[in-house]
């Protein structure tokens, strides 16, 4: 077993405090400026976590938040021991593609009850990255600041910088990470400046080789999420998915029918933005919140997704959307399972997932693990009585409900089948109003 013997608390001394300058600059770029007031980060204290609304209000007060992006290097006194397990190795964070599986290992509530909470595990994916600033959808709690986040093959990828984020009063469901390689590089440099050459060499020895292995570079160009696009329509923006070189599917509330022109920005920086027009959007009365955009030019370098024909509750899925950051650092990938498939007359009419979905993700694609397109996201959940938003319960339109009409349009340019989406049955409307479908029509007692 690699499990070490139980240990009581050991004294330690501070060697240095260090922050990664690139992390700080990425943080300022993503969360600073006009967006600064919208973002709140919460976590760290020895107190139990407050409910989201209260925690948001208190988010700026914790000492851990004042030091967001700063990490402490310590040396345990008199308790060093020979390693009995595998040597810690550090991943080159830049080599990980979005969607890569991650495992966070931390202690919720910090030193509170470590006998119960020490090294709790949480699984997720690499949701987004801006240099050494990483985001994961692995669920982390206050007290897990500083926790290690590992790749599936056991390499240390990052440390948790802030476990909880809110944007515009909505819990985002992502945790903020600092890449371990950049952080250790900064710490080794600092140790060298402070004259601790031996420790600097020790840290440097943990690092992956400079430059990395070209073969290990992210293979994002072939990933399914590359079909996700940012859709800008005046001051409104949202997500969409490219189904063909000139065909983008999104939501009506992102690209309404009265919109004359929309700008579609592909997820890969190498692809250029393309103008398009809304050729079809469902009426406001339709429960299917769908719009179809025809582009003026071909999208290039995008692998168009295979459309799913079946849905399996419980299967691993991923949502891709520009919800968290718009075009600032590309789409975010969040993972979960297909939690429900709601059918009317044996036909799927609504999909639910446990992926974290935020404002701005509307129109974004929902993929299976193998990259098949299951549907497009339209909404997450809000409790109007409390104002709480639940990003992990969200709703998507099954692609099977759209595919015949889209196929007809692609082949013939005929919009008539799409217009049928304005006239779904009453049962479909009831489902999307989140009303229970009665098992039997109520009978009159008269």
């Amino acid at each position, binding site marked *: 077993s690699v499990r070490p013997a139980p*240990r009581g608390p050991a004294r330690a001394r501070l060697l*240095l405090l260090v922050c990664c300058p690139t992390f700080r600059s990425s943080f300022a770029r993503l969360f600073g400026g006009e967006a600064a007031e919208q973002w709140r980060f919460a976590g*760290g204290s*020895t107190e139990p976590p407050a409910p989201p609304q209260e925690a948001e209000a208190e988010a700026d007060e914790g000492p*851990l938040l004042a030091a967001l992006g700063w990490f402490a*290097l310590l040396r345990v006194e008199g308790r060093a021991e020979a390693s009995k397990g595998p040597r810690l190795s550090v991943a080159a964070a830049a080599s990980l593609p979005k969607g890569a599986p991650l495992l966070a290992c931390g202690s919720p509530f910090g030193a509170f009850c470590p006998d119960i909470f*020490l090294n709790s595990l949480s699984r997720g994916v690499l949701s987004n990255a801006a240099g050494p600033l990483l985001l994961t959808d692995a669920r982390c709690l206050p007290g897990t*600041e500083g926790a290690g986040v590992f790749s599936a093959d*056991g390499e240390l990828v990052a440390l948790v910088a802030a476990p909880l984020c809110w944007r515009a009063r909505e819990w985002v469901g992502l945790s903020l990470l600092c890449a371990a390689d950049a952080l250790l590089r900064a710490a080794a440099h600092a140790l060298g400046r402070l004259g601790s050459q031996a420790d600097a060499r020790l840290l440097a020895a943990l690092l992956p080789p400079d430059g990395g292995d070209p073969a290990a570079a992210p293979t994002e160009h072939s990933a399914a999420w590359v079909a996700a696009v940012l859709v800008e329509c005046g001051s409104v923006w949202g997500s969409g998915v490219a189904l063909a070189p000139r065909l983008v599917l999104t939501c009506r509330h992102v690209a309404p029918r009265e919109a004359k022109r929309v700008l579609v920005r592909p997820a890969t920086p190498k692809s250029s933005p393309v103008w398009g027009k809304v050729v079809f959007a469902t009426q406001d009365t339709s429960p299917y919140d769908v719009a179809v955009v025809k582009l003026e030019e071909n999208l290039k370098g995008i692998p168009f997704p295979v459309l799913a024909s079946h849905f399996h509750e419980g299967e691993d899925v991923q949502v891709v959307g520009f919800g968290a950051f718009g075009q600032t650092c590309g789409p975010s990938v969040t993972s979960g399972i297909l939690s429900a498939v709601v059918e009317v007359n044996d036909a799927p009419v609504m999909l639910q997932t446990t992926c974290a979905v935020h404002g701005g993700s509307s129109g974004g694609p929902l993929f299976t693990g193998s990259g098949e397109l299951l549907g497009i996201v339209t909404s997450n959940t809000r409790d109007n009585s409390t104002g709480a938003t639940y990003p992990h319960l969200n709703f998507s339109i099954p692609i099977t409900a759209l595919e015949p009409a889209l196929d007809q349009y692609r082949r013939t340019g005929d919009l008539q089948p799409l217009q049928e989406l304005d006239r779904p049955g009453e049962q479909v409307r009831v489902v999307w109003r989140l009303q229970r479908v009665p098992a039997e029509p109520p009978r009159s007692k008269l």
Partner: protein
Amino acid sequence: MGRRWDPALAAGEQAGCVVSARGAERPGAEAEGPWSCSGVLLSRRAGLVLCHGGIVAPFLRMGAAALQPGAGPPFLGADSCRDDLRLHVQWGPGRGPGAQAGPRGALCTPPC
């Protein structure tokens, strides 16, 4: 989780730790803290631990202003913190019935 995650599980178990910071008790004054967070044991042999910097922020001689961007180099030496800072690290398997009891806090386990 399946065997696919075994390397990550082993690495997490080997490296995971929890760090707490408090001020030394002084006559007539309550000790500050504790503040605590998670951490990573980078090297067991050398006893090197990396954790969040926030738990030592209350002990900075210059206060949190020392951590603001542009306030100086992106690192601070040990002497940036007060002498009464006391740090402790705990690691290893602690879960289960044989584990040491921790102090009772405000968290509880309400029945759902």
